[in-house]
């Protein structure tokens, strides 16, 4: 069996499953946030009753992250709905914006967008926060009410996005009926050239198979090139399985994974035992392709979809209005360090917005020093508008006062993961997806640029 089949067989209490089997699986973690949590809670109360209790308090993780730093009153209300539910159900894993369990969240627009407006428990973007806070473990089954839940497949677990109704069902029962996906294998060999990042790998692959090329399927990453990648890079790759239509993306757990997971579970006091899925010799793939990482070049997904691939070096004619770095896939510490490597001591030529994925990333960038100045300072001095308010922000547009949102038909290069029409705001705006290196180089030049010229 493939990694996905092995995990799903175990989670359904079977010795073996085949692609196409419809099976009931047990959930290890259910993740939800401020956009889909209130609706999920509404379904739970409607279907199981006002007095119903969730199936397992320890297995629910609630991370408000989407529409937080906005004066939109419905958005603020939605965070309050989560808090009320957490209090009603006594849930231990709620990463609230404020620290007062009896309080109400209200964003203070007068204090501006840049300085932090959250308490100690806030965790930032759910997919990046989930591993930081010790909620990913190899071999587990994670369902989340967000399509980028697939990011946690980097840790050797089965992780996929679901809707509110399915999530409401899980809240009550802990179970979900799913179809076992066929698996596609992507075998990575060689090492990335300087200036080429994990983001280029996934943009290359989506361009290869098409942005519906993995619909209903698992994307399994293997080979020496996969094993050599660190956790941040693996997360960047599995995050975008959904951008090829995939049900999940998955790497085999190895020592790199165990070291990361064990440290986070210990630091946060979360469940520390797990049973990884082993790579088997008996695996059947519906697609099996090798990729030589050393042959890849900085890659861009052009407007209007993530499969619309071109090499950065061929797009010098695309002039830009702005650049953006942030999100679950592109707002990690390593992403900002790569970005800062290019822009340090220089000046961006277009409006450039930086939104760290988590408060942990904000702290890392304040602490990391280059020549006596923090990376955060280097970024600000290069002209990047950096906010401490870690959230999904303009990656998905959001309310009109969202930091970095395109409220006009502008052209933006972005380290985020999705570029369908209107994704970052105005429906006639255009988004080009690229690695942090390529976004940084392009921000300096004011047009899409190959970062290798800047390193």
């Amino acid at each position, binding site marked *: 069996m493939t990694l996905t089949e092995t995990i799903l067989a175990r989670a359904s209490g079977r010795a073996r499953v085949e692609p196409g089997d419809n099976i009931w699986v047990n959930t290890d973690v259910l993740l939800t946030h401020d956009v889909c949590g*209130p609706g999920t809670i509404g379904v739970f109360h409607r279907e199981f009753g006002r007095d119903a209790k969730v199936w397992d308090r320890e297995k629910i993780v609630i991370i408000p992250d989407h529409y937080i730093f906005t004066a939109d009153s419905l958005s603020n209300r939605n965070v309050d709905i989560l808090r009320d539910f957490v209090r009603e159900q006594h849930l231990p894993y709620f990463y609230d914006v404020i620290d007062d369990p009896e309080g109400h969240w209200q964003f203070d627009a007068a204090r501006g967008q840049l300085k932090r407006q959250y308490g100690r428990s806030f965790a930032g973007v759910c997919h990046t926060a989930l591993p930081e806070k010790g909620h990913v473990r190899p071999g587990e089954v994670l369902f989340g009410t967000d*399509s980028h839940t697939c990011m946690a497949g980097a840790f050797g677990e089965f992780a996929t*996005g*679901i809707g509110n109704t399915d999530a409401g069902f899980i809240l009550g029962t802990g179970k979900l009926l799913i179809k076992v996906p066929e698996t596609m294998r992507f075998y990575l060999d060689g090492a990335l050239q300087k200036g080429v990042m994990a983001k280029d790998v996934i943009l290359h692959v989506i361009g290869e198979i098409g942005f*519906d090329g993995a619909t209903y399927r698992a994307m399994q990453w293997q080979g020496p090139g996969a094993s050599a990648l660190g956790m941040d890079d693996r997360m960047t790759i599995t995050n975008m399985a959904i951008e090829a239509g995939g049900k999940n993306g998955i790497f085999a757990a190895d020592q790199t994974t165990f070291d990361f997971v064990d440290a986070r579970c210990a630091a946060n006091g979360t469940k520390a035992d797990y049973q990884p899925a082993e790579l088997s010799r008996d695996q059947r793939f519906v697609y099996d392709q090798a990729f030589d990482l050393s042959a890849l070049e900085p890659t861009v997904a052009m407007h209007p979809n993530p499969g619309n691939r071109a090499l950065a070096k061929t797009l010098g004619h695309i002039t830009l209005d702005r650049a953006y770095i942030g999100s679950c896939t592109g707002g990690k510490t390593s992403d900002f360090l790569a970005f800062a490597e290019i822009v340090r001591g220089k000046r961006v030529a277009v409006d450039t917005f930086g939104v760290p994925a988590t408060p942990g990333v904000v702290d890392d960038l304040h602490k990391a020093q280059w020549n006596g100045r923090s990376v955060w300072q280097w970024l600000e001095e290069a002209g990047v508008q950096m906010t401490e308010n870690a959230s999904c922000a303009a990656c998905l547009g959001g309310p009109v006062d969202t930091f970095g949102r395109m409220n006009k038909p502008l052209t933006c290069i972005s380290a985020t993961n999705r570029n369908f029409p*209107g*994704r970052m705001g105005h*429906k006639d705006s255009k988004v080009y997806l690229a690695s942090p290196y390529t976004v940084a180089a392009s921000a300096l030049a004011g047009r899409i640029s190959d970062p290798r010229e800047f390193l």
Partner: protein
Amino acid sequence: MSDQLTARVFVVGDNIDTDQIIPAQYLTLLPTVPEEYALLGSYAMIGLPEGAYPTKFITPGTQETEYVVMVAGKNFGCGSSREHAPIALGAAGVRAVVAQGYARIFFRNSVATGEVFPYESVDRLCDVLKTGDEVTLDFSNDTLTHAGTVYALKPLGEVRPVVEAGGIFAYARQTGMIPAAS
């Protein structure tokens, strides 16, 4: 339900993602609150670029559409997992989508909520039909008829009774899989 549905169609192309069906700024609305459910419907398909889609989907001055059947190309409903997408269509009055293909989560959410019948067409109907055309869907024979021509649809199979019941919870209660509502 009746086995036939005669309605006018709204036609869109390939890769209509959930941001075009219901843009992210409207996700603050809660589908389980009736007034907000209706508002979600009033914003259905508002993310379509007007250049490519000059016809308004929602009838001006109302919260509903006159196009009860949505016809689409490949990969309908790709992108975000927001259940608000099939809900917005259902709330606007859409009963069925006939697409050449679906993104996985949209299809699943359509069935789970029972908001719309997600039919797959055999032919590329988005190239054959125009917005405003009248069609008849036949749920017993899995066909779409337009101007005397009958087009085969892929059978809904087990999906039909679930959507007919009003989603997975209603279906599970009807069939005794879970206890009836107290």
